[in-house]
């Protein structure tokens, strides 16, 4: 039996005006376990708190019930007071007799009766309270960023600048991501490389940042503050330490027929290559699928021409195990495959290209040196037609139901880039809706039409017909309800974007959840948008949802702030109101594991002592660092083995019983 003290607050007249406080005190006294009851005008005041502290000491109280305002108001205050008195803070319960009683009822007798019931419920609950202690866990002061695009680079720079070590794992040979492939950026039209490459160099030069390029995450273990990650450094076949980045190997490589990933396959690259001139690090890799030495055993020309002897055909994948306190997902996106969109003739006509291909085509460092030419006959087009929403806002099997968000703006940008370089080229854009929320975005889009004479036509295209020397667009102008058979020379498809495929398996390793479109789920869609529901895992960039560069950079900074907030702590204190299994009752069914949104429950073989019988059973284990205390598992457990501390089955039932008495 607890020794309970009941403290009733008048809250001036807020409570005492409607509730007979003295009667509550009197009626509380005979309740089981109650050894002391008192009232005070303002319990939350320093005097009121001291009254509680003194009473705890004087009456040797083991539990405290405060009848006052909402616990959302002062629960923390009273818990601190109890702690000062030497009581475990979780031995305090609040009966909310203000917001839930005195403020909404006018009849004093009725309000007093209700306040008494609420007080009894709190007393009944505190009877069953037991001291709870937050767990402490250490924090490894290093962060892992998965993905080396602008999102990953920005997050890493911000964390590193705050003084913490950061590792970036990037699957391709260079950091830079999609932004490195872009020509200009909207709405300012500044060159992507000019603003990105300094950041890439900063990242590689930063003393707190380690780059793992051409690498992938193989395994993740542990939890917030204490992740252990295995990174696979794929064999580059080039010695990092010796290579000077002179490029002689790529130049001499006889196998130059592989499609260039960086140039979206619009041109080829050698088997030993750096993806682009400003690559960071500037160390090539050998594509073993394409390399003659690996395929036939003959060649080795690169080895011959490499003065510093950096080529190493024997190099193998290397596994590195590192510890981290936090992990940031910055895995980015890919344009969707257009295999199923045959009506646009992307696969059958070289002059139908995606927007990302257009970026390379219009880029001065791209395969045509920035000259806009048809891929089929190298002719300069007289007319270019853009088609928006290709695969976006499409609820059928072949598309994505969401809006890809960036296409309206980059299409306007593409149109202006053409008009700027070649005012004589006719530009038409087929759109369903033009969506331009964002600072200076709508003005930008309007400029395309107003100043550059780009023609916007409302209506989705039915079919693109390749007639050899030109393409024919079959569409309807929805605003004047007229069929259009437009002749054009080049078609650019604003292709929907989707998260990179590997995001799914990485999310699984991190026990972080993804939505039906494979975007990472936020801990809260409005209030915790850069955190994953899994503690210690943060989200940066398009892996969480479509966004443009400014938004990505903002989110990258926000994710960094959250990471820094975590890493500055020496120890993590967890909410002690977590789930707790009773090993004896657990039947190993795994149902709780399936409902847990945080991946906090796992099953382990444990030796249990069941009434003297010792045996090894597969039982549920809760990781307190991950459990957030929702209670889903406690309700779902068929054997009653799982319970929630602070809101246990018995405590809630005691409240129900007290109310129904």
């Amino acid at each position, binding site marked *: 039996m607890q020794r309970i003290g009941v403290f009733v607050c008048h809250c001036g007249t807020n409570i005492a005006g409607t509730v007979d406080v003295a009667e509550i005190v009197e009626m509380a006294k005979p309740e089981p376990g109650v050894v002391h009851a008192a009232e005070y005008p303002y319990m939350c005041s320093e005097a009121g708190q001291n009254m509680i502290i003194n009473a705890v000491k004087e009456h040797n109280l083991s539990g405290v019930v405060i009848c006052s305002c909402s616990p959302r108001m002062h629960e923390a205050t009273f818990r601190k007071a109890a702690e000062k008195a030497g009581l475990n803070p979780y031995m305090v319960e609040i009966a909310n007799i203000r917001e839930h009683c005195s403020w909404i009822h006018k009849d004093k007798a009725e309000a007093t009766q209700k306040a008494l019931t609420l007080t009894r419920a709190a007393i009944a609950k505190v009877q069953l309270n037991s001291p709870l202690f937050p767990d402490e866990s250490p924090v490894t002061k290093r962060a892992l960023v998965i993905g080396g695009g602008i999102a990953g680079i920005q997050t890493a720079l911000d964390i590193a600048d705050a003084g913490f070590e950061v590792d970036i794992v990037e699957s391709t040979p260079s950091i830079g991501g999609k932004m490195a492939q872009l020509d200009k950026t909207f709405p300012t039209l500044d060159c992507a490389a000019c603003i990105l490459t300094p950041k890439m160099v900063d990242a590689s030069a930063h003393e707190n940042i380690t780059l793992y390029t051409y690498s992938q995450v193989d395994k993740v273990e542990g939890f917030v503050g204490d992740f252990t990650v295995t990174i696979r450094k794929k064999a580059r076949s080039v010695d990092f330490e010796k290579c000077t980045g002179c490029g002689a190997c790529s130049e001499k490589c006889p196998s130059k027929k592989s499609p260039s990933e960086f140039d979206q396959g619009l041109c080829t690259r050698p088997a030993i290559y750096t993806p682009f001139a400003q690559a960071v690090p500037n160390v090539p890799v050998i594509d073993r699928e394409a390399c003659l030495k690996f395929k036939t055993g003959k060649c080795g020309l690169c080895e011959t021409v490499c003065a510093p002897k950096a080529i190493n055909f024997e190099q193998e994948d290397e596994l590195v195990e590192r510890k981290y306190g936090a992990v940031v997902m910055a895995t980015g996106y890919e344009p969707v495959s257009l295999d199923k*969109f*045959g*009506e646009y003739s992307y696969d059958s006509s070289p002059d139908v290209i995606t927007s990302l291909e257009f970026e390379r085509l219009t880029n001065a460092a791209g395969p045509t040196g920035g000259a806009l030419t048809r891929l089929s006959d190298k002719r300069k087009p007289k007319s270019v037609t853009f088609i928006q929403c290709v695969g976006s806002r499409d609820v059928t099997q072949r598309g994505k139901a969401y809006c890809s968000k960036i296409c309206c703006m980059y299409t306007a940008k593409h149109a202006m880039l053409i008009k700027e370089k070649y005012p004589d080229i006719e530009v038409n854009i087929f759109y369903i809706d033009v969506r331009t929320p964002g600072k200076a975005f709508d003005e930008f889009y309007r400029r395309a039409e107003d100043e550059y004479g780009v023609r916007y036509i409302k209506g989705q295209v039915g079919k693109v*017909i*390749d*007639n*050899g020397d030109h393409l024919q667009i079959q569409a309807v102008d929805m605003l004047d309800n007229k069929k259009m058979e437009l002749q054009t020379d080049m078609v650019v498809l604003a292709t929907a974007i989707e998260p990179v495929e590997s995001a799914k398996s990485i999310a699984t390793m991190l026990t972080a959840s993804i939505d039906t479109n494979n975007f990472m789920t936020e801990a809260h869609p409005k209030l915790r948008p850069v955190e994953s529901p899994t503690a210690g895992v943060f989200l940066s960039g398009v892996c969480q949802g479509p966004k443009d560069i400014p938004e990505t950079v903002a989110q990258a900074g926000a994710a960094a702030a959250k990471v820094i907030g975590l890493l500055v702590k020496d120890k993590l204190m967890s909410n002690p109101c977590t789930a707790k299994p009773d090993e004896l009752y657990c039947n190993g069914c795994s149902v709780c594991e399936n409902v847990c949104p945080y991946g906090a429950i796992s099953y382990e073989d444990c030796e249990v002592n069941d009434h003297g019988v010792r045996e090894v059973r597969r039982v549920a284990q809760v990781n307190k660092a991950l459990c957030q205390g929702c209670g889903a598992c406690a309700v779902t457990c068929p054997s009653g083995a799982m319970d929630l501390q602070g809101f246990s089955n018995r405590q809630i039932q005691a409240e129900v019983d007290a109310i129904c008495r």
Partner: protein
Amino acid sequence: MVYSYYPGCTLKTKAKELDKNARLCAQALGFTLEEVEAWQCCGAVYPMGTDEIATKLPAVRALHAADEKGQSIVTLCSACHHVLKRVNEDMRQDKDLRTKVNNYIAQEEEPYTYNGEANVLHYLEVLRDQVGFDNLAAKVKNPLAGRKIGAYYGCMLLRPSSVMQFDDPENPTIFEDFIKAIGAEPVVYPYRNECCGGYISLKEKEMAEEMAGKIADNALSKGAEVLITACPLCLYNMDKKTGETLPTVYFTEFLAEALGIKEE
């Protein structure tokens, strides 16, 4: 392999070439077509209304007949294939329709219940998936070398692709693969999956001619010398418009010719 064979109305009359050559070639390629007994006309168009019941019964009866024998049901005519395939899918997916159809059938002399168990195949699918185009190519005696053939798919074999599951609805290749197998050169043209006008040619002759004309022009511009089709109505509409400049023939005629078994 023995298949149930559903010829359909036109293959017994105007499209005898399609039918006769298909049977001959089946023999030569080692499979047998057993005509469904007492089959009824499928109606030539799929009854799209969700409340259409009686109009779907002829298809159900044919499907059941094949299923009872444990055979897949093979069609040649695009329209028959379309109707049979879609009604079969309805019988699988639409519980309401299934109940109503089976209530009708329960009144018949030999009642049964049918739940879409049959497997509906087009003759081309048999060639592709059962015989195999490589195997077919090996059996060709008179390769049609140098012939530039445009495949005319039309609409009914391909769409809606979620039900028909025949080929990529926008970029189909099955006919082209067939053309290669018989040693000819396929001419790919963008309009090969556009509609010839279908039944509209009965009353709206100008409309139909315009549609057929567009397809023919497109095929001619890509160098086609002849079109092949699986559909008697496509053949009629196409031939009517451009029979002299760009003839259209049934694919089974070329198949028989290539296998060296065509009866003149």
